């Protein structure tokens, strides 16, 4: 499998941008991967912001297909919030593929995007890969996806044998790189014929606030996570995270205890950062399934028998409330000195 910056075939690759209010680093990665496969166009469910358009241009996107979903369909499904329903996103992706005769669709690996990708592939008769960690092509020009499975213990390669490939790609698959020259980005209205949402109605939708000043968990290059060993005090975890510019996460236990809101795990957020630091986390299979694809794993735990020590690169046996503040202070002193 090769991932080159120069596409070998004349493909059209569509990248899903939802929401279109900002272009997150995960989407910049998709655009970077897409440029290596062919000509890149974006698909949105709403008008992109000026900032989003500028970033798309810098990444070589000439055309954005903005869905025009029939207003009565949206109204019957609960209004504007219905725009992001997987069935609506899927119909939009399918319409965009048909209009552009696209060969590849790339979407982020969020639960909502996975479902939309699956439904679009279903409608198109396309091949579907969920949670690819790498995307390239084989000698015959077929799309090949690399996947990390079984809690990061195995690598598989999967070839798409259908004409159209739809893939969701995990964050931290590549380093985002702008195009050599930026382009002017045009927005094209994309009529989406959608009679209904099979009766699904959005009765309420509250968009989540993102923690200001910290990267998001899915996309962060560095993640610091706290578990049961914090005893509910995430202060040392957050202090250390801020010293290294990391996103903060938790184990499922810690979330069930009500100490934190989002957990890393095979059914929670799945991450593949450059550096993962687990503090007071024993490393149950559930948690490992969500973080074992990290490049470097560091653990701090007072229990020398903690299973997480079996999968780490560097470990401190000690109390996180002592170790993390000391490390944070040393790193701050280096940065400020």
């Amino acid at each position: 499998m090769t991932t080159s910056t120069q596409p070998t075939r004349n493909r059209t690759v569509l990248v899903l941008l939802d929401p279109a209010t900002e272009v997150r680093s995960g989407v910049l990665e998709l655009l970077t991967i897409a440029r290596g496969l062919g000509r890149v166009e974006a698909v949105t469910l709403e008008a992109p912001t000026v900032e989003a358009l500028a970033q798309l241009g810098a990444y070589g996107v000439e055309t954005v297909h903005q869905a025009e979903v029939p207003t009565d369909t949206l109204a019957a499904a609960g209004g504007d919030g219905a725009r992001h329903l997987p069935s609506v996103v899927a119909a939009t992706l399918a319409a965009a593929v048909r209009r552009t005769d696209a060969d590849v669709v790339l979407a982020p690996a969020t639960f909502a995007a996975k479902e939309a990708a699956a439904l679009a592939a279903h409608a198109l008769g396309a091949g579907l890969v969920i949670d690819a960690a790498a995307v390239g092509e084989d000698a015959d020009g077929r799309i090949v996806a690399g996947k990390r499975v079984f809690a990061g213990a195995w690598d598989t390669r999967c070839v798409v044998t259908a004409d159209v490939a739809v893939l969701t790609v995990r964050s931290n698959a590549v380093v985002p790189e702008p195009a050599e020259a930026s382009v002017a980005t045009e927005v094209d209205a994309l009529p989406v014929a959608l009679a209904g949402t099979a009766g699904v109605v959005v009765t309420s939708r509250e968009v989540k606030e993102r923690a200001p000043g910290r990267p998001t968990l899915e996309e962060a290059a560095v993640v610091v996570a706290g578990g049961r060993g914090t005893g509910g005090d995430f202060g040392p975890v957050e202090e250390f995270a801020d010293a290294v510019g990391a996103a903060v996460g938790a184990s499922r236990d810690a979330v069930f205890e009500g100490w934190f809101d989002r957990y890393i795990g095979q059914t929670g957020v799945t991450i593949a950062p450059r550096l993962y630091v687990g503090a007071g986390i024993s490393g149950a299979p559930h948690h490992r399934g969500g973080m074992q694809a990290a490049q470097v794993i560091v653990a701090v735990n007072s229990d020398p028998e903690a299973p997480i020590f079996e999968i780490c690169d560097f470990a401190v046996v000690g109390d996180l409330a002592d170790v993390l503040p000391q490390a944070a202070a040393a790193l701050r002193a280096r940065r400020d000195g």
Partner: protein
Amino acid sequence: MRIVVAVKYVPDINADRRFVDCRVDRDPGVGTLNELDENALEAALRILDALPEDERAASEVVALTVAPADGDVALRKSFQMGVDRAVRVTDDALAGSDYFGTATALAAAVHRLEAEAPVDLVITGMAALDGLGSVVPALVAAELGRPALTLAKKVDVADGTLTVTRETDEATETLAAPLPAVLSVADTANTPRMPNFKLIMAARTKQIEAWSAADLGLDAAAVGTAGSRTEVVSAAPRPARPEVELVVDKGEGGTALAEYLIRNELV
């Protein structure tokens, strides 16, 4: 109320999971009910538990799986939790199915159950712990032409309407859809019940119905390896990580951690 719970037979996540010839190894020694399906079974049983006695008596929960014969392990566990009936779809033609082949087979089995009486709900867990795709429920709904409400952390069924609350990466949503519908439940939706002794004993001798692809009228070319639009061409274990560098904190553990990060250019 008639509910079908689609369950999966997967390798235990605590076991040494592996691939053989690019397929997930189904060694019966390590096969089990997908843990996340226990939340689906619990959700189904709670919906029935809430019904008046006469309605409950006329209701049914059916556990359904597409698996080789070893998959009975998953169905026995479903009986232990309290399902009324279990169906296994087994056919060599189904081996190697992609997401779409699996959804097609599950939908065809639901159609066959509907030939007896209407099915109000199809419930699944949020993911299978071997593949972790989380897309089969939406695809089953698409095959059946029914609404799908997925990843529910709160479930309510009343007056022919299914209402769920769910957390996506972007938002907290409340969604509603008319029955019949497809529902997937998150692992935060409920705490699955422990099987009681009576049900454990009864589960041993309960009959499992086995259906073939032909029984469901499935086109063998549309499922299994023949119908799959993707192909796993290689599967290899990751190289073992180098030996861990372990520091026991005697007052300098934090400094050692900072030095490790600096030395390896991680900060």
